[in-house]
């Protein structure tokens, strides 16, 4: 996992906003995906997990 000091500030800001989008945006679709297919819901949930991990890596 990279440390904050290794990420240039401009890129860190962009990555933080990407992590933010990954954490929150799939939430809008999750309940609908649940009704359609469990696989779709799991895929969206893994996006949120990826967002959380990215946040830990770049913050």
């Amino acid at each position, binding site marked *: 996992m990279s440390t904050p000091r290794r990420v240039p500030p401009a890129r860190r800001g962009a990555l933080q*906003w990407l992590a933010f989008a990954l*954490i929150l945006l799939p939430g809008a679709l999750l309940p609908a995906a649940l009704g359609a297919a469990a696989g779709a819901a799991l895929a969206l949930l893994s996006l949120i997990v990826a967002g959380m991990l990215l946040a830990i890596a770049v913050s």
Partner: protein
Amino acid sequence: MLLDWTLALAPLVLIVVLMVAIRWGAARAGPAGWLAVVAVAVLRFGAGLDILAWSQLRALLLSIDVLLIVWGAFLLYRVADEAGAIRTLGQALPHLTSDRGMQALLIGWAFASFLQGVGGFGVPVVVTAPILVGLGFPPLAAVLAPAVGHSWSVTYGSLASSFQALIAATGLPGEAMAADAALLLALAGLGAGLLVAQIACGWRGVLRLAPALLVMAAVMGATQYALATRGVWTIAGFGAGMAGLAVGLALARVYRGTDGAPGAPPKPAQVATALSGYAVLVALTLLVALTPLRGLLDRAAVQVPFPALATASGFVTPADDGPRLALMRHAGTILGAASLAAYLIYRRAGCYRPGAARRILAATARGVAPSSLAIASMVSMSVVMSYAGMTDLLAQGLARGAGGLFPFVAPWIGALGAFITGSNTNSNLLFALLQRRTAELLGVSVTWILAAQTAGGAVGSVVSPTKVVVGVGSADHAVEEHTVMRHLLVYTGALIAALGLAAAAALAVGAR
């Protein structure tokens, strides 16, 4: 039972360890806490995919509700700061009095509270500590005075983002909680002023300044109470700071002192221009709150009904209408409009250098990114804990453990959350629902316990390591962090203990 309780507590302990021992920021510790909560919720508490899915939709709505205000408040602050408005106000104040105690009250208490009202994010200490050092205060006093002085203003400060978090986390209407929170914070305001006077000139100075102190505390507390209980809590902290400055200016004529401040004061027209950006915010807030425009704008709202959900362990969360996001009349939207209007006013007055708009937007995007991540992850964490029954279990344990002493404990929980996360907002997101459930189990007033939570969180936030580091940096590192921390722990500890006593007294006399 004990194992479940310990596991439910583990993610919160993890956040404490990550932030205090390993010194992670909230934007890193929050996501780590969410991952831990999801693991415990799924593996031990029987939370299924449906709970995780609906939790995340709820977290999205609650996060946006809080973040709109955080983003708007930061943007307005940048608009004013880029125009030199904050600097102008800071230059004007020292010329009003050379009385050391009155200077501390005006700058370290009223002005710091005003800055918390309009900005927050550590701004009160960053702006006022160098002014106090410039006036000859020792660096330790220059950092301590505004740090303690603005603490009472944190909940309704930053355009009430912490209070909005309290609403979002508990699902209770703001109108139901505003009065008790404002009363308890008014008491904290008096305590903060008293401590500022003590820091500046000792207990003898407190006695000498007592009349000014009491008048300013009464005016600020009453203004905050009046605004918060009339539904315009976004400007309650800011309005209280303004009222404190206004009455402080009048009192400065009495406590004038003998020496003049160095340099020429800014012209009245410059001060008026500096304040104009905030005047727009007041006008827009009142326009939306008190006219038929409110009903019109209220129609544009987002609301999703949530179904009843059950864990495999049998914990059931009943169906509800879900949080309602009235986007057009949202305080964050009003802040955005006020920021645009303020920008146009300052630009017309020639306050900006070329490229100001780009700098304002870039600084805002950069500045709010970490807090946005922290808020999104902590809201997500709090919602999963609630749906999985973990919050309920923790509340049952607290109710059994603390029992009748819970009112004394409540502000310390709020303070601990803020100390760990560096934010009254995050503390409310983490612990407000837990406090609500515990109060319900014990059969005591929920609104007083939540007032104790947020007031404790407000005071506790100023002693968080991140804010102390920022404060010491603003005094050019002329004082050491551990020294500031040690003194702040004593001052804020006294304030939090007083809050616990006040909450217990309010409950004992059956208030509400």
